[in-house]
Every structure is written in C-alpha cells, then in structure tokens.
C-alpha cells in the first residue's frame, strides 16, 4: 500500500472544507457588513469561477504539451506516433489562455481601481483553492520525480511536466495573495489558514508515513538477518519501495517545512491552528503510537498464550511494523504536544490541556469498552454452545484472548492516567473544572454514544429474540445470535451509569440558567458606528440578550463611542423601555442617542 493513499482523501477534504468555510464566512459577512461596494457578488462569482476553470484548462493543456516534448526528448524510441495528446494540449492551451487572461485581467484591473475587492471572500477562495490544487499536484508528482532521480521506474513525463507547470502557478498565486495579506480581515484570513494547515497536515502525513516505512524496512532487514525469518515479499533496505518512501518523506518534509515553519510560523491561537495541532498530536501521535504498541504487545502475548502455530521467527515478523509505527507516533506526539504547551497560556492553556486529556481519556475508554464488548460476546457464544467449550483451547480462541488482553493493557492505563488528570483538579477546584466546556462535551459525548449503542444493541437483541419466538425456534442458537447485541447493551450499561453520576454531580455546580428573554421584549436594534465598532456591538448584544445589527458609518466625523459597563446597562434599559418596536442607536457626545420607531 502506498503511503500516499492519504493524499486524495486530504485533497477532497480540503475542497469540501474550503466550500463549507466559504459559505459560512460569506453568510457571516453578509450579516455583519453593509452594502457591497465592489463589483457585486454575482459578477465576482462569475469572474472568479471562470478564471479558475480557465486556469485549470490552461495548466492541463500546457502540461500535456510539455509531456509530449519531454517524451520526445527523454522517452524511448517511437514505434508508432500519435498527435492526439499534443493536439488536445494545444487546444486546451489555446482556449484556456485567452479565457483566463481576459477574466483575470478584468478582476486585477478592478482590484487596482477598488482596493476593497482584495477583501473579497471569492478572491481569497480563488487564490487559495488554486494554491491548494497546486500543492496537491506538486505533492503527488514531486515524489515521482524524486523516485525517478533515485532510479525507480521509467521516466515520468507527466510528473515532470506537472511539477514544472504547477510550481509557477503556485508561486504566482502565493505572491499575489502575499501582497494582499495586510488587507485581509479575520474572515478572509481564515481561508488562508485553512490552506496553510491543510497543506501542513498533508506535508506531515507524507513525511511521517515515508519515515515510518523507511524505519520499517531497516528494522525488517535487521529482524530478517537476526532471526532468518521467512519474509517473502519484504524488501531489502533501499530497494524500490524504500526509495519511494524516501521520496515521499522528502516531498512531504518540504511541504511541511514551508507551510508550518515558514508561512504559519507567526500565526498563533487561531482555531484552525489548534485543530491542526490536536489532529497531529492525537490522530498522528497518540493513535499511531497506541496502534503500534498494540501490534508490539499482541505478538508476544499471543505467543505466550499458545496462539501461534508457526515458528517464532515468522510469528514475530510484525514486530518491526509495530515498532516503526510507535517510533513515528512518539516523534509526532512529542513535537506537537510541546507546541501545544508552548503556544498556550492562561485560560487558553487550561482549555487546551483539559481538551487534550479528555480526548485521550475518550480513546482509552473506547478501547476498554471495545475489549469488554469482545469479552461479553465471547462469553455468550460459549454459553450458547457448550460444545464450544471443548474448542476454547483452539488457536482461534487463544487469539481472541490475546486481543482482549492487548486492548485492556492499552486502554485501561491510558484511560485511568488521563481521566485521573481530569478528576483530581475537579475535586480540588470543582467550581471551575466541573463546568468547563471540554468536560461537558466529553461527558455528554460519552452519554450520547453510550445511549446510541444501548438503543442499537437493544434493538438487535429484541429483533433476534422476537424472530425466533415468532418462528417457534427459541433455542441455544438464539443466544448465539443475541450475543453481539447483548454484549453491546451490557457494555453500554457499564459505561453509562458512571458517566451519568458524573453528569449529575457536574450539573449541581452549574449556575442557574438566566431567565430567557421574552420574545416580546426583544426588538430589532441597529447600532451605527464607525469601523471597529464590532466589539461595542457585541457588548450591547450581550447585555440586551439578543441580536444587535451593527452598521458602518462612513462619514469623516464618524466615531465609536467609549462606554463603561454601567453606561451599557443604562443604554440597554433605554432600548428596552423605548416605545417603538425598533431602535436605532446613533453616536453622540454622551454615548448614544436612542431613537425608536415603528
């Protein structure tokens, strides 16, 4: 399996993420900002969509033309020629070039005439989706070029052409976006962050999987030499597959270094950065380490339990894979966990550390629950067929016991260690710890999953029971059919009560819910301020308890009044008591003039 199997998944996730984020940002901005002063959303949508499609056609065409040229120069002797590729490439280039040139020049001229266009979400999406597609092509083809340099495979004309064409495309769009980065606001900066952290994730995934495979090849070779195991199909170190792994790690390392260490180095505390850090620490680090540890623990356990029918050399041949996975997982974990600690402080550090502990505790709990489910399922199967007891010594059952022990050996310490780190502070400082959002999400998440499992297991159990009852076929075989459902139900019943108690204890410490604002008490409130009045609007909104629309006041004498907490309280009372059904707040020397209207 090639380590690059993750690339198309990441590209698809990137595209879906960009679209979802774009729509959310667009809606949010539409709600917050005033009228569109640029070329207008419909025209903008048309020009950037056509520019993007035309750019892709153009790049595709040039790639095909360049492929033809490279094949002519470096490919083998031609037995039979075909001009189809050259003709297709030329056609795409001839169509795409003027189409892109015209539309792109149009939007560039508009940007020069109206600098506010630079803040357009569609422009940002165009630039960063183009860069994202470029990085995807460069990642997928860059490693093939390096493979060829390392003397693996035939001359990759398409990969060379793709690298030569997509590199300047990426550079041009990066240069264009960089020039405009100072004019980006919080919303459009999110698009660049999405690109940066998805590219960083792609890079680290390629780097880690490439290095993991390299470590695996070296360990396998050492294992083979030491134990003379029959490793048919495995490779010598630095054979073709090892060189592919080296190529993948080189390209991944370059992408990660560029995006994480260079471009995203001064970005701090953004949600997307934290998502990246959590995914890399927990997904890439903890889960990979635990899976590797599982492989490394299972092999000796199954051996000692007598679940192996082959020689020791062959039985332990999976150990190199486990050790390599643990090594890479630990490296990922150490680096990203340190970054999490160093980049958080104060209240943020509290939430980050609690979220981290709870996520790891959740992984441990899921592992323990799964192991318990397997134990109960095994028990019911044995119970349903006493004849099975005679085969409990067979390899199949021994393998199952080794698996259960492995899962418990991993899950219990992981869950206990991290749940303890959450519970001890909760006893010491319950007012803060027990009502923290990460803890609430964890407890509710466990209860929700537990209930879903309970309902699913109960439905399955009931179905098999009723089916056999109605068919008058109730027998020991029925219990065998019920075993999985019953195991799920009992496992859920082990997990739910404990977490329900935790939930009840936490709820007792929560402050009383504020009185809901009566629907009739809320009214449309419009707050007029100069640019930068969003914070004030948020404070008024918080005090009123319902939404306030902030509109920009563009006149030269516009300003944002400075109000104390008491003044905002007073303003809220004036809004509430104003006779009109709607209220307009206009800045004046005393703060705001409250004008109500129907």
């Amino acid at each position: 399996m090639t380590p690059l199997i993750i690339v198309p998944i990441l590209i698809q996730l990137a595209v879906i993420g960009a679209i979802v984020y774009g729509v959310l940002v667009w809606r949010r901005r539409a709600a917050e900002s005033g009228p569109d002063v640029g070329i207008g959303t419909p025209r903008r949508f048309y020009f950037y969509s056509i520019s993007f499609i035309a750019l892709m056609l153009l790049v595709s065409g040039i790639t095909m033309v360049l492929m033809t040229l490279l094949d002519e120069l470096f490919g083998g002797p031609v037995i039979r020629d075909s001009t189809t590729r050259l003709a297709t490439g030329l056609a795409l280039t001839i169509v795409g070039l003027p189409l892109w040139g015209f539309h792109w020049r149009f939007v560039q001229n508009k940007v020069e005439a109206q600098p506010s266009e630079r803040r357009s979400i569609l422009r940002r999406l165009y630039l960063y989706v183009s860069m994202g597609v470029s990085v995807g092509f460069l990642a997928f083809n860059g490693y093939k070029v390096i493979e060829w340099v390392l003397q693996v495979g035939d001359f990759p004309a398409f990969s060379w052409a793709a690298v030569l064409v997509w590199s300047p495309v990426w550079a041009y769009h990066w240069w264009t976006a960089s020039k405009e980065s100072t004019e980006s606001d919080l919303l459009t900066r999110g698009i660049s962050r999405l690109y940066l952290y998805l590219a960083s994730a792609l890079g680290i995934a390629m780097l880690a999987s490439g290095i993991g495979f390299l470590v695996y090849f070296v360990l396998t070779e050492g294992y083979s030499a030491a134990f003379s195991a029959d490793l048919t199909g495995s490779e010598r170190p630095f054979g073709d597959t090892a060189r592919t792994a080296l190529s993948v790690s080189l390209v991944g390392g370059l992408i990660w270094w560029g995006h994480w260490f260079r471009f995203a180095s001064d970005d701090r505390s953004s949600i997307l950065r934290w998502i990246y850090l959590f995914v890399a620490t927990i997904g890439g680090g903890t889960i990979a380490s635990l899976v590797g540890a599982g492989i490394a623990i299972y092999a000796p356990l199954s051996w000692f339990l007598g679940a192996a029918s082959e020689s020791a050399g062959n039985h332990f041949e999976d150990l190199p894979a486990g050790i390599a996975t643990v090594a890479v997982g630990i490296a990922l974990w150490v680096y990203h966990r340190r970054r999490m600690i160093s980049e958080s402080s104060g209240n943020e550090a509290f939430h980050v550390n609690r979220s981290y502990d709870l996520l790891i505790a959740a992984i441990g709990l899921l592992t323990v629950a799964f192991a318990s489910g397997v134990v109960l399922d095994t028990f019911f199967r044995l119970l349903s067929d006493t004849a099975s007891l005679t085969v409990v010594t067979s390899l199949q059952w021994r393998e199952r016991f080794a698996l259960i022990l492995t899962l418990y050996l991993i899950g219990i310490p992981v869950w206990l260690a991290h749940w303890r780190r959450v519970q001890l502070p909760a006893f010491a400082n319950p007012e803060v710890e027990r009502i923290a959002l990460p803890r609430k999400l964890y407890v509710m998440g466990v209860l929700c999953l537990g209930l879903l499992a309970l309902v699913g297991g109960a439905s399955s159990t009931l179905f098999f029971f009723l089916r056999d009852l109605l068919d008058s076929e109730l027998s020991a075989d029925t219990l065998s059919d019920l075993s999985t459902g019953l195991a799920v139900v009992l496992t859920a019943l082990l997990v739910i009560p404990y977490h329900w108690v935790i939930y009840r204890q936490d709820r007792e410490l929560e402050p009383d819910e504020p009185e809901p604002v009566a629907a009739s008490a809320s009214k449309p409130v419009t707050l007029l301020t100069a640019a930068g009045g969003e914070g004030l609007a948020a404070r008024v909104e918080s005090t009123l308890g319902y939404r306030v629309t902030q509109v920009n006041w563009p006149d030269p004498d516009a300003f944002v009044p400075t109000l104390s907490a008491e003044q905002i309280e007073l303003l809220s009372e004036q809004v509430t008591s104003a006779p009109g059904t709607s209220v307009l707040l206009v800045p004046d020397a005393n703060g705001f003039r409250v004008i109500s209207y129907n």
Partner: protein
Amino acid sequence: MERYWLIGGGTLLGLLLIASVAISVSRGEADFDPGSPEFAVQQYVRALASEDFDAAEALWSPSLKEDCSFEAFALDAGRDLDRLSEARITLEETRVVGQTTVLTVDVVRTNGGGIFGPSEYERSYNFGVREFEGEWRINGHHWLADECVSSHFAPGT
C-alpha cells in the same frame, strides 16, 4: 512588476508551444534497421493499428500460425486492438530470453483532457520475436487467445 512577469511567462509559454510542435513534427517515428526485431514489431503494430490483418498475419511465425488461429486472436483481442489506434507506442526495453527476443512497448492512448489533467490509458505489452529463415517473426505476445498463451508466450518470463 506583475505585467513583466506575465509577459515573461507568456513568452516562455509561446516558445514552449513552438518547440513542442516543432520537435514532435520533426522527430516522428523511429527508423529501425529492417533486419532488426524492433522493425518487425513496429511493422506488426502498425498493421494491427491500421487493421491490416493480412499484413499482421504475415508477420506471425510458422509455429504461432500452427498453434493459434489468427481469426480467434483478432476477435479475442478486439478491445486491445482498438486501443492501438490513436495510441502513441514507444519501445521501453529489449531483452533476449533463449532464442526469443522480448520487446516491451508502452502504449499510451490519450482520450482527452479534463480540467485537472489529461485522461490517458497507459499499459505495457510484451512481444516475443524469433528469427525464422533470416527474418524476424512474431512468435507470441499479449492478446493471444487463452489456449495459445501457455504454449506461445508467457510475458515477462
């Protein structure tokens, strides 16, 4: 500044297009020595691609004709033969296995171009050629009917 970059890029692109067309048109297909295995395969592939089955059958070795039916081959390999038309075929490797010379060719058929790159079918095929009475003849290759494969070609071995 941006204008100069775009002009520079456009000039480079123009030169690339001209060079590609010029080189592709001027180089064309390789001229193999008429007494070589490569020439025999080239003639055979050209005959199949242009559906000149008489010419193709004439290039089969006597033993291949004896054991295999050309009609069965043409029917069975119909889809693969279709792929030869409009395909660019290059010689990848030549190696000698006993009395047979095995030539590996790379067949690339471009079906068009999408917005994310070309849509191409690419596959390697092996041809076994052997010298009979001073002339190189096709003695086995892919696409032969199943009953001929084991006796006449085991590609790559």
